[in-house]
């Protein structure tokens, strides 16, 4: 399959045999989870195509641009300011971390009780199966949770181009100053990497590209508030996931085209699920490609996911960057303002997040919230405990799920999710 890219993958130093296996599993998973859905919008064809070429054509395109001097920056987190990367004329991609791979090798480097997301990012490196990672000129790590910041010390031994960004843990003035200092340092690093100066014009352009992408996704989010819902949660999640890989302007156009179609569907009351299907808000840890286990279980248990309170979802997309500044300093301030509002569980306290969940549950007319945490992800696991009482007070049913990427617990999860759906239905 896709053998025309073998030369390219080989030149990136990838393990072709292992990569073939990965693509086979990914292809089968995609068929089972996505292509089997009924009544999908036509606009999803584009995303099917992107996914079928996610390690092929997209990499080829990026490598061609790279030959023209465009740098590739890989990231693991929505705190990496895309505006600054784009301002420097580089491209930003999310790095693979949504599937178990080469776990035996990973567990020689990291403790077994490390979260699946971190382990996966190492598995893709050690297994030599992520073309994004292998083609990146710079890999940006960020000091979010303890697991991530300590594991970057180990990742640094495996790659030569890791840049670690420090991040604040509170929303105090000092914390904001730290974020500002780190973004300024990052802007300099981007200038050095690309040789392109960051100017008012380039920043405005970077902000415009990034904001347009967010606005398109906000449009999609708004359409999902419709009852009946015109698109499945899985398909909407896929669009969020693809936003981390795709060329931004083309992505924005494709999401807008999808939204045009969905607007018609809403007008005509065309739905993807039967009437009165219970509506679920999914909240918690990020879901990187191809981590579709829980959403798939939810949507095959007689419910529809109407929103994601997640880094791959509203947490990552909320708020635009103010582009009205007339100098680099004020534009940088605006970027800091925008990212400082992200309600990641690494912040303490993090009450904004609880408020956002309650607000989202109301806006999306959700019948219940599923709190999803990866095993060993203490920040989200602990917040889920506190959220239980908050949701009870608000009268919003909530189910707490802790899981990882392995299919081992799928049956137990299915029982719990189905019972939850029966309870709220």
């Amino acid at each position, binding site marked *: 399959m896709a053998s025309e890219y073998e030369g390219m993958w080989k030149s990136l130093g990838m393990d072709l045999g292992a990569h073939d296996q990965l693509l086979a599993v990914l292809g089968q998973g995609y068929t089972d989870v996505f292509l089997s859905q009924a009544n999908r919008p036509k606009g999803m064809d584009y995303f099917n195509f992107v996914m079928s070429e996610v390690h092929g054509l997209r990499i080829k395109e990026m490598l061609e641009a790279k030959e023209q001097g465009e740098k590739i920056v890989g990231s693991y987190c929505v705190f990496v300011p895309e505006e600054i990367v784009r301002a420097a004329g580089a491209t930003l991609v999310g790095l693979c971390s949504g599937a178990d791979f080469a776990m035996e090798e990973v567990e020689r480097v990291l403790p077994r009780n490390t979260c699946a997301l971190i382990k996966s990012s190492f598995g893709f490196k050690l297994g030599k199966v992520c073309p994004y990672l292998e083609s990146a000129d710079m890999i940006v790590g960020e000091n979010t949770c303890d697991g991530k910041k300590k594991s970057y010390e180990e990742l640094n031994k495996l790659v030569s181009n890791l840049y670690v960004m420090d991040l604040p843990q509170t929303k105090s003035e000092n914390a904001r100053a730290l974020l500002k200092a780190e973004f300024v340092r990052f802007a300099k690093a981007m200038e050095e990497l690309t040789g392109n100066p960051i100017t008012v014009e380039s920043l405005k352009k970077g902000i415009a590209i990034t904001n347009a992408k967010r606005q398109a996704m906000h449009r999609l989010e708004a359409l999902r508030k419709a009852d009946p819902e015109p698109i499945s949660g899985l398909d909407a999640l896929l669009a969020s996931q693809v936003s981390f890989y795709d060329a931004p302007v083309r992505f924005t156009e494709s999401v807008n085209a999808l939204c045009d179609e969905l607007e018609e569907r809403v007008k005509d009351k065309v739905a993807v699920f039967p009437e009165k299907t219970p509506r679920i808000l999914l909240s918690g840890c990020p879901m990187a490609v191809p981590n579709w286990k829980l959403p798939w279980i939810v949507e095959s248990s007689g419910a529809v996911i109407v929103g994601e309170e997640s880094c791959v979802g509203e947490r990552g997309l909320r708020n635009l960057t103010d582009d009205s500044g007339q100098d680099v300093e004020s534009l940088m301030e605006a970027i800091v303002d925008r990212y400082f509002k992200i309600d990641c569980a690494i912040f303490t306290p993090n009450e904004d997040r609880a408020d956002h969940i309650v607000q989202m549950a109301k806006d999306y007319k959700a019948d219940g919230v599923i709190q999803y945490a990866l095993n060993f992800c203490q920040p989200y696991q602990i917040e889920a405990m506190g959220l239980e009482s908050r949701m009870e007070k608000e009268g919003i*049913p909530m189910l707490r799920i*802790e*899981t990882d990427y392995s299919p*081992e*617990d799928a*049956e*137990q*999860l299915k*029982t*719990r999710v*189905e*019972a939850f759906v*029966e*309870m709220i239905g």
Partner: protein
Amino acid sequence: MFFAGVDIGSTSTECVILNESGEIVAADMRPTGANSAKAAQAVLDSAVEKAGLDAPPHRIVATGYGRVSAPFAHKVVTEITCHARGVLHLFPQVRTIVDVGGQDSKVIRIGPKGNVIDFVMNDKCSAGSGRFLEVMARALEVELDDLGPLSEKSAEEISISSMCTVFAESEVISLVARAVPVEDIINGIHKSIVNRLASQMQRMNPEPDIVMTGGVAKNSGMVKKLSMAAGHTVLVPENPRMTGALGAALTAMGLERE
């Protein structure tokens, strides 16, 4: 018109058949074995025969972990909802259900209107389930049904520190080797399971009436210990293994009214 509920659990499969007025006309059970689809069909057939029906029940609902392997079912509903429905039928005042089956344990909270308002389930490990007790009974060379009565003769409370089925088994074997009385060992096993169940139960703010179901509810020693831990008498249906199938049959009856 007749209605059937089939509960396909990890250890045993049960079937209950109701008539139009909701009275039980037949009930049957058998070990699930390796082929849950076969067990489901067999238990349905034998219950139909017991009830003397000349046609299959009008509506059938399947539940339990093997619920998808019942092609004859008109609807599939989880064991959480079915247990709640079955228990509520027998104990209208129930607010908390503790169900301990073959490989899982769950606590279900029932609202004033009889609806499920919350539940917890063990996720991966089967420690503290019926299977755990089966393994311990085998290690002690006593019958499963004798565990309850034997534990009530215990004179001294000992602790079993391991909750992993494999490690607990070797711990029990070493206690036997040290000539610790079997009654005390069983009592210790019960205590460690109840401790685990109690913490699961606390998450649900248990209110009376508390009803225990599942095969483990047949163990009087477990029920007494759970009552102590809960601070309320734990009630047990006459046939605690049948509540899931009963709830499924009641759900089947509800399908007709929809």
